[in-house]
Each structure stands twice: as structure tokens, then as C-alpha cells.
């Protein structure tokens, strides 16, 4: 999992999976609750942390930067479920989402779900409107699958 000399690989296949850990109460009958998904705060210039399947296994998502979080579970969702265009029902603002490979020193597979306005401005992470955020979380929920059952 150490990054060592490896560069970031920006290209993701649509069928590639993204892993994220969860707690037992973040799921109901084997389905992840969309409320378990968090967006970054404004001006954080970072997306939601995930691990990409090309460079990791599901169980690797159980590690944070210090330790293995035993008892938590892992769910996965495909890159293809991230909408290339999402329109806010109230403001009409258009947003796009994509996975970005952001390797960490001790987690090469670390990636983030990024967002920008449409047309693209490429000036960093753009926090979507609250309704677009809510719909994205539900979209990820709808397409997610639990791969390691949480015990805690």
C-alpha cells in the first residue's frame, strides 16, 4: 500500500470500483444509508475519500493513516455511477463528478470523488448545491454493495 516512487494514475475504467468503510449502523438490511456519505466542507479543496480497486483490495479500506479499524465494514460502488452531469432542481446549476487518484504516502490507492461546475472551471473542488449533494449520496447508495460486513 505504500506509495513509494509511484505516480498518480488519473485514468479510471468505468467498471473500476471504489471502496469506503462504514459502521454497522450505517446500513440497513445490507444496504448502505445515504446519510453515511459525507461531502467535504467548503474551501477544503478535497473530495470524499475512497480507495480504488485497481490498486487495492476491499479490506485495505479498513486502514486509516495510523491503524487498522477492526470491526468496521467496507462497501463498494462503481466509477460508472458518478454522474457526468447533475442539474440542481432549484438553481439550475450544473455539476460533474469524477474519481481522482490522490495517492497518500502510506495508501497508494487513495482516491477522492471530485466535483466541478459545468462548464468546467478547473479551479479546485467545487462544492455542489445541497440538493445535488443529496442526490449524489442517494445515487451512490443505490449503486453500492457491501463487501465486508461491519460488526461494530
Amino acid at each position, binding site marked *: 500500500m505504500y506509495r513509494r516512487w509511484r505516480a498518480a494514475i488519473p485514468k479510471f475504467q468505468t467498471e473500476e470500483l471504489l471502496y469506503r468503510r462504514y459502521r454497522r449502523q450505517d446500513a*440497513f438490511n445490507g444496504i448502505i444509508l445515504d446519510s453515511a456519505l459525507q461531502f467535504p466542507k467548503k474551501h477544503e479543496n478535497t473530495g470524499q475519500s475512497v480507495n480504488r480497486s485497481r490498486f487495492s483490495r476491499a479490506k485495505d479500506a479498513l486502514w486509516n493513516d495510523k491503524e487498522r479499524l477492526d470491526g468496521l465494514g467496507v462497501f463498494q460502488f462503481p466509477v460508472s455511477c458518478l454522474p457526468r452531469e447533475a442539474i440542481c432542481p432549484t438553481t439550475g446549476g450544473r455539476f460533474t463528478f469524477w474519481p481522482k487518484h490522490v495517492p497518500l504516502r502510506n495508501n497508494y490507492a487513495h482516491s477522492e470523488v471530485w466535483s466541478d461546475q459545468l462548464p468546467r472551471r478547473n479551479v479546485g473542488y467545487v462544492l455542489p448545491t445541497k440538493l445535488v449533494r443529496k442526490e449524489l449520496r442517494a445515487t451512490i447508495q443505490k449503486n453500492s454493495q457491501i463487501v465486508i460486513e461491519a460488526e461494530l
Partner: protein
Amino acid sequence: MIYAPPQHVEIRYRPSYSEIADAEIYRRYQDTENELMVSREGSEYVRAKIAQLELENRLGQLSALRANWDTYGSEPPSKESVTAAAVIAKAFIDFGLIPDAVGPSAEGGVAISFFRNRKYADIECFNSGETLAVRYSSDEKPTAWEVQVDDAASDATIQFFSKYLSA
């Protein structure tokens, strides 16, 4: 060697009707017992009462959450979001639409979720004071909308959810 004085053991043996009744009485006892269980499970009143107790218990747990409860740095639900969720969830329970899950929101707040007939809907009360809802079915994309705080526990909102989930 450790000495332990003899302990008083209470004999709590009670014969069950399977051991004292003949086959016919035993069968009637069983039928009555099954009817009682079905009636208890089918009782809207009892279901609502149990749901209400579970809700109170759950909201108590959510109030005790600390920052970083999800290991991704999320803030715990505020007192206001727990109170708002309690009012909304109680209104749903009183209506007969019992939430399937009440949990903390990673965005800060409390979420009330429903799964019915291959459909999903939830209401999320945020620490910011806003309330958002979302719904989707297996063959439609998620649609989110804002619920005005005063309307969140209203008959119109509850009936909308009820109709959507049961259609």
C-alpha cells in the same frame, strides 16, 4: 483451596401445559397462544408504541455521539437536529409509517429512512437547521427536495411519503 459456602438455589421449575394437558387441550392452548402473538404483532397501537420506544432509545444514542464518529471526521448530530428528527419521526409513527432506520448523518444531523416495495425515501435534518428529503425506486433516479421545517412533520409530507412508498 478456595472455600465457598453453599449457595441458596431457588427452584423456579414450572410445569408447562404441554406436560399437564391432554392432546386436545394442548392444541387449544397452542392455538390461543398463536392468536395472541398474531394479534400483538398486528396491533397498530402496539407496533407504534414499540417503534416510539425504539426511536427514543436511538435518539439517545445519537445524542451521545462524538466528533469523528464515522472515522471520516464527521460532526455529531446537534441537539436541534435530534429534536427536529424526533418530532418528524414521531409524526410518521403516529401516522403508521414506521421508519426502518434512524441514524446519524455524515453531513451532520439525523436521517430518517424508509425502505418499502423496492423504493427508498428519507428525510435528513441537518445541524444547519435545513431539512432535505430524497426518494428513488429501482427504476428511477434519485430526486431530492427541500422540506420547510414547519412542513416536515405535516400531514401533507407524511402522506406524500406514504403514497410514494406504497404505490
